[in-house]
């Protein structure tokens, strides 16, 4: 076994871990970052497809108010461009296809107005949630005992309005509304500026994309950190005392020697559900461990169908879909800025993702193309290629796009999200107060955890 030492060890080289590492290095602290995968970026992952298309398999957008990500993008010269929104969206409801302009499907104006009022009520209620302590919100207990699903059932009488909100919520969280604590939902909405903001392209969370992919700024940070980042180095066990941490890196089967890393402090920059898969000694305090049991990852598959050109634009369509049927119920035009390819991005989320979990990639692609044909016509049946990422099967992610907090988590265990355990600190977008669940939240969580470590090491 190889032995290494550092002052601060970071577990996970997603945006949270990389952001923490950079901050610590700037403070003159000796850092190592252990990353299980053979790449950095975590839930953000860009590849180039066989036909030369830049594909973001995970997080991909940047919007107004995501200032940390924008600053980083500016610094590393990562260009952004607007998500394509010109034209109309396709609404599929009750086996009927219509098109609509703007954000919300309008085939049934009364249902759309009910939907907007319901979104408005959620967004208004969210403004009451203190971001640093949602468990102190008004009616926190009652709200944490409800789910978004039960709130919708009790508050929104129009099935059409519920369908619109459900489609949005499924692709934002990767879950059904009935799995989300209402208190957590309100916290999450406030954290990202409201459901309307999270659902929007222009003036919202899906406003712009990265021309070179959203992983580009992560690669830039990794370059800067150089050999401090250890790839293909899964930490499998952590032993901690009052002022020391020892982590065991067990290399994957492809080889390499186990490594023992000793550090004075450790930042675990991964979702709660993954953090408890490590072998902790002594066991984590009950409250932290049980919090992690109540924060499962969402269920999402991203499918990209690549065509020779964005043919739907010829018919005045913007590639966006809101549907109540099929595997893909929300989609976007994900073509490159020069439209050298036409790319449709579809989300398979929540129950549909679970139903297709045992399917092969080819079967999921087939289901997706059948949906695209329903929405965009027969030309959608013949893509140049289909690329998919089924996140529940990713060994070091196990779902996405984000951890979802079950009823009772925030009021019963909330402070354990960020409270350090001895020399162990917690980062990751799930611990963020602003833009929780987004890349920007991951960056801020890293800065917050780094500040804790800097203060602790100065004592």
């Amino acid at each position, binding site marked *: 076994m190889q032995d290494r030492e550092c002052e601060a060890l970071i577990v996970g080289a997603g945006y949270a871990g990389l952001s923490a590492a950079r901050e610590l290095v700037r403070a003159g602290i000796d850092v190592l970052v252990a990353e299980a995968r053979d790449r950095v970026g975590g839930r953000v992952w860009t590849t180039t497809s066989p036909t030369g298309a830049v594909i973001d398999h995970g997080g991909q957008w940047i919007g107004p108010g995501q200032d940390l990500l924008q600053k980083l993008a500016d610094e590393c010269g990562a260009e952004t461009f607007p998500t394509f929104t010109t034209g109309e969206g396709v609404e599929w409801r009750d086996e009927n296809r219509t098109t609509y302009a703007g954000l919300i499907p309008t085939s049934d104006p009364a249902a759309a*107005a009910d939907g907007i009022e319901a979104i408005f009520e959620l967004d208004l209620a969210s403004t009451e949630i203190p971001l640093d302590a949602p468990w102190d919100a008004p009616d926190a207990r009652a709200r944490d005992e409800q789910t978004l699903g039960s709130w919708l059932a009790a508050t929104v009488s129009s099935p059409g309005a519920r369908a619109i909100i459900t489609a949005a919520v499924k692709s934002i969280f990767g879950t059904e509304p009935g799995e989300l604590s209402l208190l957590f939902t309100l916290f999450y909405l406030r954290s990202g500026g409201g459901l309307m903001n999270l659902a929007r392209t222009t003036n919202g969370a899906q406003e712009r994309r990265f021309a070179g992919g959203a992983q580009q700024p992560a690669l830039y940070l990794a370059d800067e950190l150089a050999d401090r980042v250890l790839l293909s180095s899964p930490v499998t066990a952590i032993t901690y005392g009052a002022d020391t941490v020892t982590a065991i890196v067990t290399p994957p089967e492809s080889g390499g020697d186990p490594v023992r890393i000793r550090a004075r402090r450790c930042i675990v920059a991964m979702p709660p559900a993954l953090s408890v898969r490590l072998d902790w000694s002594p066991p984590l305090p009950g409250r932290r461990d049980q919090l992690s049991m109540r924060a499962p990852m969402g269920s999402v598959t991203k499918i990209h169908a690549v065509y020779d050109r964005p043919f739907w634009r010829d018919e005045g369509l913007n590639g966006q879909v809101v549907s109540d049927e099929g595997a893909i119920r929300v989609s976007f035009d994900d073509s490159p800025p020069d439209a050298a390819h036409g790319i449709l991005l579809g989300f398979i989320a929540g129950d549909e993702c679970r139903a297709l979990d045992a399917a092969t990639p080819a079967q999921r692609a087939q289901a997706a193309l059948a949906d695209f044909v329903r929405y965009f016509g027969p030309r959608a049946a013949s893509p140049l290629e289909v690329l998919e990422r089924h996140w529940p099967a990713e060994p070091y992610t196990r779902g996405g796009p984000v951890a979802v907090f079950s009823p009772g988590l925030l009021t019963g265990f909330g402070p354990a999200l960020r409270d350090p355990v001895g020399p162990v600190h917690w980062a990751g977008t799930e611990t963020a107060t602003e833009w929780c669940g987004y890349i920007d939240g991951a960056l801020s969580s890293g800065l917050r955890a780094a500040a804790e470590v800097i203060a602790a090491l100065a004592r």
Partner: protein
Amino acid sequence: MADRDEIAEAYADWRIRCNENDRLRRMLRGWDRVVHLVATDTGDRFTVEVRDQMLAELAGGTDAVADLVVTATSEDFADLFWGDLNPSEKYMSGEITLAGAQEDVMRLDAMSMVAFLDR
């Protein structure tokens, strides 16, 4: 291009419909605000006040400090108030802009969409 009178006439019509709409009244609760409208092509300015869940009459651009500033072409303002223009579509294309605190933008955004749908 729409002149001041046309915009005022369209607004008067829109105002009556909004103030008679129970859903909109609910959505305006606890929200007294001053909204400036700026027509990008003519430079005309107007002020709308929201008070006690009601829209006031359109005023010429006043010196009152605005909570929100809306910009659009004069034609789009007129069409919006006549109910011929989907504000969500113009906001999505960037042809209408809203500037203000996030919660105020959210309110105006939602209420203008509802005003369009319930027309």
